[in-house]
């Protein structure tokens, strides 16, 4: 269990994290979402005691993480896969970490096997691909068999097989009763992995709820209509209270209708003798919900004068 209460971090006059409060519960995968620069990494670092909060508290299982003299049995964390020394072998890197926490040496071989790096155990980390470094970072997090695991952007640089493996791993760790907290700026990733979401923008909390609730409160349901009489249909639907957006290229034009359900659109078209080629309900994606909710709080928008 991770509890964050009124957590604030200021760098000069810039507030990176602003009175953030949320709880991450065991037995579930909780996604930590926000656009780039939203304060995700700063929050993770404060939970891990690397950065001291300006005000507020963060505890892991009731204790500020910094109060533990040794950490690996309490929390496993992957912050950045590059935080290794390229001159050491994977096995030596893990062995040194294990030794510092009094973890038996055999765990090194076990976690390397677990993440699929057993073959590469004695190779220099400097020669690893980003995906391999991510696996090594996950191995580091698993080393102490901790009840709480935190991963910052764990999917970066992984191949599709690796992504599938890591999703299964997160689900399994949560099923074992552990607290799994993973950050990402990719909403689509959470759709497949997380049960709960903590969404932040510009350092403030936007939402803390289940993935399903979050998706539902995002974009209203949208119906896509293809018709040869687009202009007429658009006029009919607008007068019935819908809002219309035109999609696709000329000749294969489609209307994206929000504000009316598909059966109502079909009925209106029938009454007005308008031919429909296609009528599809597009369910709100998590991606859309995320974009909509964080639109006001995106730190760096492309094309925006800075």
């Amino acid at each position: 269990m991770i509890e964050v209460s009124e957590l604030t971090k200021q760098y000069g006059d810039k507030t990176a994290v602003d009175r953030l409060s949320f709880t991450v519960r065991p037995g579930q995968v909780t996604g930590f979402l926000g656009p780039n620069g939203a304060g995700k990494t700063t929050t993770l670092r404060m939970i891990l005691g690397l950065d001291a909060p300006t005000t507020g508290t963060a505890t892991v299982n009731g204790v500020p993480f910094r109060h533990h003299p040794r950490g690996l049995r309490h929390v496993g964390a992957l912050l950045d896969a590059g935080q290794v020394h390229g001159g050491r072998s994977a096995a030596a890197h893990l062995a040194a970490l294990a030794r510092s926490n009094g973890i038996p040496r055999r765990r090194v071989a076990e976690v390397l096997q677990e993440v699929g790096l057993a073959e590469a155990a004695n190779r220099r980390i400097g020669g690893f691909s980003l995906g391999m470094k991510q696996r090594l970072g996950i191995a580091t997090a698993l080393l102490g068999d901790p009840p709480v695991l935190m991963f910052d952007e764990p999917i970066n640089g992984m191949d599709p097989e690796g992504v599938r493996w890591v999703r299964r791993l997160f689900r399994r760790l949560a099923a074992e009763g552990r607290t799994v907290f993973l950050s990402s700026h990719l909403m689509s990733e959470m759709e497949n992995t997380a049960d709960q979401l903590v969404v932040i923008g510009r350092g403030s909390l936007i939402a803390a709820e289940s993935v399903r609730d979050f998706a539902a409160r995002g974009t209203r349901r949208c119906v896509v209509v293809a018709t040869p009489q687009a202009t007429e249909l658009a006029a009919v639907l607008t007068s019935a209270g819908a809002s219309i957006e035109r999609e696709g290229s000329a000749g294969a034009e489609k209307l994206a209708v929000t504000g009316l359900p598909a059966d109502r659109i079909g009925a209106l078209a029938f009454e007005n003798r308008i031919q429909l080629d296609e009528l599809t309900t597009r369910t709100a994606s998590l991606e859309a919900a995320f974009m909509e909710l964080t639109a006001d709080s995106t730190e760096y928008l492309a094309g925006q004068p800075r």
Partner: protein
Amino acid sequence: MTTLTSVPRSAPVDAPPVRFRDLLASEWLKMRSLRSTPWTIALTVLFVLGSTAVATLADKAAGSGPADFRPFDAYPPAGYWTLILVASSMGALTVVSEYSSGLIRTTTVAVPARGSVVLAKAAVTAALWTAIGTAVSTGCFLVSQALVNGRHAGVPITHPGVFRPLVATALLAPVCALVGLGLGVLLRHAAATMITSVFVLLMLPTMFSDSNRWSADIKHAMVSAAWNRLIENWEPDPHSLGYSATVPGSWVVYVLWPLITVALAVFVVRRRDV
């Protein structure tokens, strides 16, 4: 409300006691798992021994008078400035390499007791460089005496006036390595740390001379000046115009430099964001 509710597990019950020697073992593993460590040490030792051979062979006066130990043949400044440079850089690298790669964050998550990490690194660095320093110091003595033996001027290691230069030279390496390590924690950047340690250990002492009281005081508070005084196995000339450092004062300098830099490092690392 009952006190019998199960608490969430905060740590597995089989967690072993927290031991400082686990950190020592961990840092030693880190040190020896880098291929560059043995190579750098081997090349440095060879260079310093070579500088001793060159200095002894070039010293025409050696062997012309009565047999005595001539410390500047065995311990020539050129060779030992290199040792100061390498020891302080290697000491600094044990921490700076962690800061530049970000490994320090992985280390700090594994061991949130940051002060203990710095102390463990300092202990391992001190032990390694004391061993190297002792080997180099003894080796240089033997090389120089073997060469002057050809001129029948060699002295045994038990000769009066040999022991203090030998020990002071052996300890020069760990003193400089610890100063480098302390500065590395304080500055964190590789270039800044290297330049600062070279400046305070090698360049700064040359700015001050023995001819003024205040200037001499500053100079004598420097590590390389202290080493110079400690290997001089003769008493300073009482009629000399320059001020001379004292032997006890020079030992104090040897102790204070690493003590202060490492203590500052431990103090700062506990208060600063990683």
